[in-house]
Every structure is written in C-alpha cells, then in structure tokens.
C-alpha cells in the first residue's frame, strides 16, 4: 500500500515479506483503544463477580498448585512460602499466556469482521495485549497484598527480599507482551490455513508452562540441562520476576540476552507471517 503526496492507494499483489501499514496503524489508533474498552466492558457483563474473576482465577490456580505440587509432590520452592512462589509464577505466566491465547485467535474470531471491512489487522492483536494489562494490574495488586502479608506477618518473611529490580517490571511486561504477540501471531497466521493449530495452541501453552520454571525453581534443574531450559525465552522472564519480587531466582545476563534475541526473532518472523496471512486469509477461512 503505497502512499504518494496526496492520498493515493495502490491495490495490487504485494511483494516483499514484511509489509506493515504503519500509517494505517497511526490513523486507527482510536480504534485500538475502543477495542480495548470493548474487551474490558464486554468480558464480564452479566457476571456477578465481574472483574473479580481476574483475581479468582489465578488464586484458584495457585491454590491447586500449592496443594498438588507443594503439599503432595513436595517440589522445592527455593525456601519461599509455596503460596507466594506459585502466585508470582502465575502472575508472570498468566500475562504471557493471556497475550498468546488472545492473539492466537485473531483471524478465527474476527473472520466476520475482517471479511467486511478493512483496517490494519494488527490493531486487533495489539488491543488484546493492551487489554490484558488490566487483568495483570489487578493480579499484581493481589500479589503485592499477599507479599506484604507474608513479608511482615509470617516467620517466612525473612527469606523474602524485594529488590530494586522491581522497577524493571515495565520492561518485563513489554518482553512478555512481545513474546506472547510473536507466538500468538505465528499461530493465528498458521490457523488461516490449518485449523489444527487452534487446537494445538491450547495444549502447547499448557505444555510450555510446565517446561518453564513456574511451579519449580530454575535452581532445581540439573546443570547440564540449564542451557536447554534457558532457550525457552519465558524462563528468564519468570526467574527475573521472582528475583525482583521475592529475592530468590537465577538471572544471568547471558540468559536474558538470549531470551530477548529469541523473542525479537520470533516477533519479526511472526509479523511477516501475519502480514502474509492477512492479505488473502478472507479467501481461505
């Protein structure tokens, strides 16, 4: 879509592998925020608890983890209160998984809309990533409340050290958003051709969580496997979260750099795959 001095649009088969309608994105920025608003308003209409579900879901998950992995399986939590350990992991993982899950259905759930009107398709996944921030905010507040309680009112409080690294939270969020976006865009681009990926993605996300140190600390992984686990970009994100908020975790510059690199590669290739899929997906879906 080339634009000349005035307003000229050329509709023709695109060549090139990474064509993003930046101008369109800027023009449609209001739509981005209206979509975020819609997601937020529509999600919990006709529910009693409303946005409280943002808290209930991770709390229940944490509770299950505490019972199953903490009490029954007795997996190490690096000396931290299991509840807090899992809550931190779920917080970090939840935002990423939300971004991934939300963006991976972009084409399937908006097929009707996309088939009738043009706007830069990237607006939709971007709105997902932003609207998930609300849930994250509420969950973060819950987590901080628990952190406060454990730190000052329990004996285990001595083991918890909140570090200055918490100030890196925006960077961590950006990192997980970009990673979730990257994987989600890949999946949604693939689902335009093969629906199988929509089933696969849920299963894969679940599997990925267990491959990430969410319910176990990185430190329990045998030395020779650490390099492999560090190839998973989520590993260093979750560990950094834990290190920042709880003071226990394995963070190394190498692993972080590797994670950022993999994320960027995934994101750029995903953008290419997405922009390739968006051109004609209406014909195949």
């Amino acid at each position: 879509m080339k634009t000349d001095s005035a307003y000229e649009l050329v509709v023709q088969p695109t060549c090139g592998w990474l064509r993003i309608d930046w101008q369109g994105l800027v023009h449609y920025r209001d739509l981005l925020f209206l979509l975020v608003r819609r997601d937020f308003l529509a999600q919990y209409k006709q529910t009693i608890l409303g946005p409280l579900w943002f808290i209930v879901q991770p709390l229940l998950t944490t509770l299950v983890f505490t019972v199953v992995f903490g009490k029954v399986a007795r997996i190490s939590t690096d000396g931290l209160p299991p509840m807090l350990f899992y809550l931190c992991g779920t917080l970090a993982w939840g935002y990423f998984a939300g971004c991934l899950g939300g963006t991976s259905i972009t084409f399937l759930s908006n097929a009707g809309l996309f088939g009738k009107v043009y706007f830069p398709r990237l607006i939709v996944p971007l709105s997902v990533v932003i609207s998930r921030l609300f849930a994250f905010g509420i969950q973060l507040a819950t987590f901080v409340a628990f952190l406060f309680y454990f730190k000052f009112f329990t004996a285990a409080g001595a083991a918890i050290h909140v570090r200055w690294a918490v100030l890196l939270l925006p960077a961590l969020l950006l990192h997980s958003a970009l990673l979730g976006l990257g994987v989600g865009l890949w999946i949604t681009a693939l689902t335009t051709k093969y629906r199988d990926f929509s089933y696969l993605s849920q299963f894969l996300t679940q599997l990925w969580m267990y491959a990430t140190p969410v319910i176990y600390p990185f430190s329990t992984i045998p030395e020779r496997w650490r390099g492999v686990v560090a190839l998973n970009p989520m590993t260093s994100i979750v560990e950094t979260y834990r290190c920042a908020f709880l003071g226990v975790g394995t963070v190394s510059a190498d692993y972080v750099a590797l994670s950022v690199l993999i994320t960027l590669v995934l994101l750029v290739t995903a953008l290419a795959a997405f922009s390739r899929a968006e051109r004609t997906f209406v014909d195949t879906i």
Partner: protein
Amino acid sequence: MSDVIITVDRLSKRYRLGQIGATTLREFAERLWQRLRGRDPQAHMSRIGEKGLGAALAETRNSGRSGSSERNDSLDEIWALRDVSFEVKRGEVLGIIGRNGAGKSTLLKMLSRITEPTSGRAIIRGRVASLLEVGTGFHPELTGRENIYLNGAILGMRKAEIDRKFDEIVAFSEVERFIDTPVKRYSSGMYVRLAFAVAAHLEPEILILDEVLAVGDAAFQKKCLGKMGDVAKEGRTVLLVSHNMATIQGLCGRCLVLERGRVAFSGEPAVAVEVYMQNTIECMTAFADGRNHPNRQPGMAAIIEEVAVLDAAGKLCADFFQEHHPRLRVRYNSRNVVPTLAGCGIALEKAGGVRVGGFNSYMAFPPPHRLPAAGCVEFTLDMPHLTPGRYWVTVSLGSHQNHLVDKITRCVAFDVHPSDIYGTGYILTPADGVVALACSVKVEEL
C-alpha cells in the same frame, strides 16, 4: 486525468477451490505424501513391495508427473474476476450489476483492501470507506452509544469526528430513547437503523456499498436512498452493487455489468439493466422440456412437450419488471394418447409456496371446449401486478374440466423485479405479499 479517482487495471482474482474452507494438516500431509510418491500405482506397489524409498522415488521420477493431476489442478481454480479494467471519475455514482457469482463482491472486496488481487492493480486517489454490511463489528453486549463509537472507528472515523457527529447520528437512527441500552435488546429494525446511521455519517471521498440498501422497513429504506442521493450530490464518488434495478437506475450515472468475472458492459444504466436482463436468461427456469420432466404428476400421460416463459418480444426470459407482462407458452401433442383435448391451464405459485392463482382456457373461451390434438397455448399475464420475487408455474392439460391428462408442477419459473409502478417512488419488496394492489386514494381533512 486529475478527475479520474479510481483506475482499475486488469484486476484479476483467482480462487483455488481446494483452498476454500479450511484444510487440515492431515490433508496437507496427505497431499505432500502423494506428491512425493506420485500418483502412479506402480510407485505405490513398489512401496508395498519393500523396495527402498529411493527406488520408489526414482520410479516416480521416471514415470514423470502424471498429466491428469496437473489438469486437476487447473480445474480446481476459478477466476472470480479476470482482467477487469475501468475508470471512475470524481463525483460519479457507478452501479455494478451481475448475477450471483459474477464477481461483484470480489471486486468490492479488493477495492476495499479486504483481500488482495492475484494480478493487476487498482489505483485509488482518495479516502475510501466501504460498507459491505451494516453493523459490522457491533457488539451485542455494548450499548447503542458504545457501539456508535466502536463501529465508527472500525469504519475509519476518528474519535473526535464521532464526538462531533454523535447527536446527528442518534437523531438519524431514531433510537434516542434506547441509546444506553445494550443493542442485544434492540429490535432488528432498531439495530439496522443505528448501524446505517453510523455509516451514513462517514465522510469519505469514495464510498463503496454492497446491497446495504436492502435493509429495514420501506420507510427507512426510502430515508437511506435519500441519504445516498445526498451523498452523490455532495460530489462524492460512490460504487454501488445492487440487485435492485430500480435503485441502480435511480441513483447511478453509469453502470457496469459483470459476467463471469469480466466486464460485459459499461455505460448508461438503462442500457446496462437491459444487457443484464438479456444475459441472465436462466434457461433452466425459463424453459422446460416436458417430455421427461421429473415434476410430472404420477399417472399422467406425457403430452406436454415444452413450456417456456417469454417476454413481450417472444424471446425466452426469466426476469421481468413488475409492469411487464410475462407470456407462458405451452406446446403439446396428444395424438395417439387421448381422442380429444378440452383445455389447458396454468397455476402461479410464489417461492415459499403461496398459490397466487390460476388461469385456464375454460375461463377464456365459452363452451364447447376443444383444443387441437397438437399445438400451442399461450397465456399472457395482463393482470395483476405481482410483487417482486420468484414465481413458479404449474401447467396442466385436460380432456374435460374434471379430467386431467397431463400435469407438471413447477416446471418453469420467472423472477419479478421491483420497479416504481406507482410513480411515487414507493418500491415494493418480496415481503409485500404476492399481488401489488392498486387503489385510488382520497384524503379528506376533518
């Protein structure tokens, strides 16, 4: 050349039939596997015969790509649009007509950037808003107010622009009282009115419309048509796809006829409508061979040979405007079947099963009733005006009034298209019953 706002140059779009609908990974794997081993049964045998994969592949290579599979590939493709070229001038209202599948929607979709062309290109010199559906992106849980903003933004309006036009939009939609109610509680009429109101307040230089005028009740349709007329008068360019010939003739300055993905005609709307009508003779419905007809009633003798729907000029025709008089021609031969034939009848049925009425030669002539042993009977429908829609015709022949010799139900059909029969601009729709009543009206003030 500056007044040309849209240039379409050899625009083409190919669909692969296999790609329509989702493919599964399994199908892909199967296709890959087939390609790998070729479709040669010999190669298949060698796989079973425990030869190495290499040998099987070599054999496939030697046998070459089979010609038949390549031919299949090209059969799986259809060109929804092929080398379509035209220009639109600034301020022009261009109508696009054609039968289902002629490529109208594909053309609009490409011009509105929903899907990319396979080849060719279009240059568009202005802001485009396309309206291929009313209410795109409406969310049922959100209120009318929230949906105005959302829908407006989806159609390309900025928030400030919607703020400015908000009151106007609400007033046009006539749903002021329910503006803070979720639209899922709206009646379908209210929903459509709100949706159209948003769309009507877009201010693009080029407006692309697909059949959206065919919504709402008659009064609202009229309002929409009025608004469209205003848009055109303001000097904006409009591309309009419609099946409603009255709309096309009333609004458009020029009209394209698409036929199987190509431009069949471009020019005066009145001529275009004529071209369209001629091209769309549906031989399947306008003509029936009676000798082996599947709809013949059981026990009947096959004496009806042909049934045809004709226009005033005597040509096969399946499309009529309301003021036209379709002619039904029945050719039969009863020699060696029955000694005498007394009458021939037709019955009209509207699609949906409502019987409109019937007519027969007993009504047309006083007794004694006699028809030649072989011949033609032609009925011309003088009265009344039918409402738009599709009509099926049942034909029968009898040896006397209570004894049928042959009867074929729904053997031919024709379509009636809306036109301004009252001369007041009030257009009837298929929902307005079967017969267009005509009354003289007197209004008294009390």
